[in-house]
């Protein structure tokens, strides 16, 4: 069993409601993703998917517990250091891909590099885009690219800083069925080629069905289970 690249232990997170009441969103005893593993996380609305992603990526600090990414406990770091870990260790693919509209495909990849520890590497950015068949679209802006091409830019950008894990948040939610399969194939193939772990958060069973490991948030997040009841 390869060592875990993500490991959560006794993680709790709650939010204050406008009335002052606190609502538990995450209550996870243990959760781990092995290096190079491909995992689908299923969850309904309100199951804490986004909060879990925010906690793993260091955007949000948990109230308690350990969040270890590639050996670094994010829960003990200040925000700036968590940002640095996110830039270096994690690649993010969002719903609707969230490319920067004013930047070309190449610049979208270079921007991600700008926040990592290494220097922006133009040649690597071009190679990443060429690897997803966008070598001829380097200088096109998102609006000038098809949906499929935008997906590929998002995947290339996620790999910009040689991450250990790619986190994909509902990457198929806003696209038609034909493109859904392309996105999943692209993510899995590319992450396999780069030896990167992949965590795809989805509410679509047909998407999670394609992953060797599937987890339902409700099964390991006690807070979600409470809400479901």
């Amino acid at each position: 069993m390869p060592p875990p690249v993500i490991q959560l232990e006794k993680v709790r997170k709650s939010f204050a409601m406008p009335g002052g009441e606190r609502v538990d969103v995450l209550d996870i005893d243990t959760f781990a993703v092995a290096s190079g593993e491909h995992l689908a996380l299923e969850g309904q609305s309100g199951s804490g998917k986004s909060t879990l992603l925010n906690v793993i990526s260091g955007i949000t600090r948990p109230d308690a517990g350990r969040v270890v990414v590639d050996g670094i406990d994010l829960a003990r770091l200040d925000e700036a250091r968590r940002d640095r870990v996110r830039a270096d260790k994690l690649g993010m693919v969002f719903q609707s891909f969230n490319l920067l509209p004013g930047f070309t495909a190449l610049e979208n990849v270079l921007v991600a590099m700008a926040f990592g520890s290494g220097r922006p590497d133009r040649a690597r950015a071009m190679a990443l885009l060429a690897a997803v068949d966008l070598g001829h679209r380097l200088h096109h802006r998102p609006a000038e690219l098809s949906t499929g091409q935008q997906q590929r830019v998002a995947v290339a950008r996620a790999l910009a800083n040689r991450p250990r894990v790619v986190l994909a948040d509902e990457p198929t939610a806003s696209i038609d069925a034909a493109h859904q399969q392309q996105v999943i194939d692209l993510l899995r193939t590319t992450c396999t080629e780069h030896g990167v772990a992949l965590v795809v958060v989805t509410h679509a069973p047909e998407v999670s069905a394609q992953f060797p490991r599937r987890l339902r948030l409700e099964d390991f997040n006690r807070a979600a289970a409470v809400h479901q009841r």
Partner: protein
Amino acid sequence: MNLLGIAWRNIRQRPLTSGLTALSLALGVALVVATLVTGSLVQRAFESGSGLGYNMIVGAKGSPLQLVLNTVYLISRPIENVGWDFYQEFLPAARRADGIDGKYAASTGVAVPTCMGDYYRSFRVVGTNADFFGRLTRGDGEPFRFTSGENFRDADFFAGVIGATVAETLGLKVGDPFSPTHGADDGKVHDPFKVVGILERTWTPIDRGVFVNMEGFYLQDGHAKPLPDGVEPEVSQALAGEGPAPLSAAQREVTAILLETASLPGLPPELTAMGLRTAINEGGEAQAALPVAEIRQLLDLFVRPLELVLLLVTGLVVLVSALGILISMVGSSLERSRDVAIMRALGARRGHVLATVLIEAVLLAVGGGLAGWVLGHAIVAAIGPWIAANAGVRAGFFSSAPAAEALLVPFLVLLAIAAALLPALAAYRTDVSRWLHGPG
């Protein structure tokens, strides 16, 4: 791609908004630059005029400032005239008919008489003698030089020397005749004089002057001082034995006397000048004015406050332009929030997004500021010929007010940072999860 590149890309992403913001800033800065440069030119015009190789002006009692403005800058009206006898008091024995030193001769280095009241077209005519160009110097201490011809001779009654602006404007050449008019540019036409010399440009009011031999000037209609009833004018001999006889001393007056005071043995020149000035002012016949002091007072009283008011107004224009930066950035903050959230999710620290917004504002300020600087100087260059013609100072693209202009860009940068602070802090506080993740 670094933060500068990201900020530049953000600007290019909104070409219309960014362009209009930079343009409004450029117009504000252009106004400030044009005001600063023009103000400094006006000041230079006055300062250059106050150092014309003489340090004192003697004229009829009245406003010393009017005396200076009229004599040095060839503007405003002459006060009155002083008698020929009084002028003689500044001359040494060798230059006086009675062979005795004048009362003030010991304190006087050079005394040059001027007579005013005539015009040629819109230019002032100054009656004087050959000492004006022979013994006085230009503002820079250099002797007067001629682009063509030479100084007139005292014996050549109807000769004149014209300034560079007069020659350029009217197309006059050496040998051309010109007839001054009495009292105004549409007054009675006098006898013709002949241009014998055209002065090299001095960038002083001299460039706008028409200088004629005062002997010829005196002989024009209305220029002789009326004698009391029963007094007959003495008949003078022609200076060179030919031509018309000069006007008698009793009928002569001068408008002003330009003095270069002498250095008395054992006394600093300033004290000599002060002593002479006091002596003249205490007398009943005339007043003595120090051009430098008068001009400094004029600058302090009128020009500098006016410049300050103009600067305040234009400063407000720049402030409004800076508000444009704020409005433009606040206006695009919704669009920016999503971009900022994406960048934060990619690993950008809060400091990165804060810096990006501030750099964006600074780029707009520097871009707009530089464009405005160029535009401001272009405005000065465009109105340069008009300034040169009216103020008698060189005004071109490279005319500058270095001290104030050097402060402009740092000031703009600070202003832009201040204006962008609010949107930058909003970007700093952007909630990433709100903008990126779906429900769940």
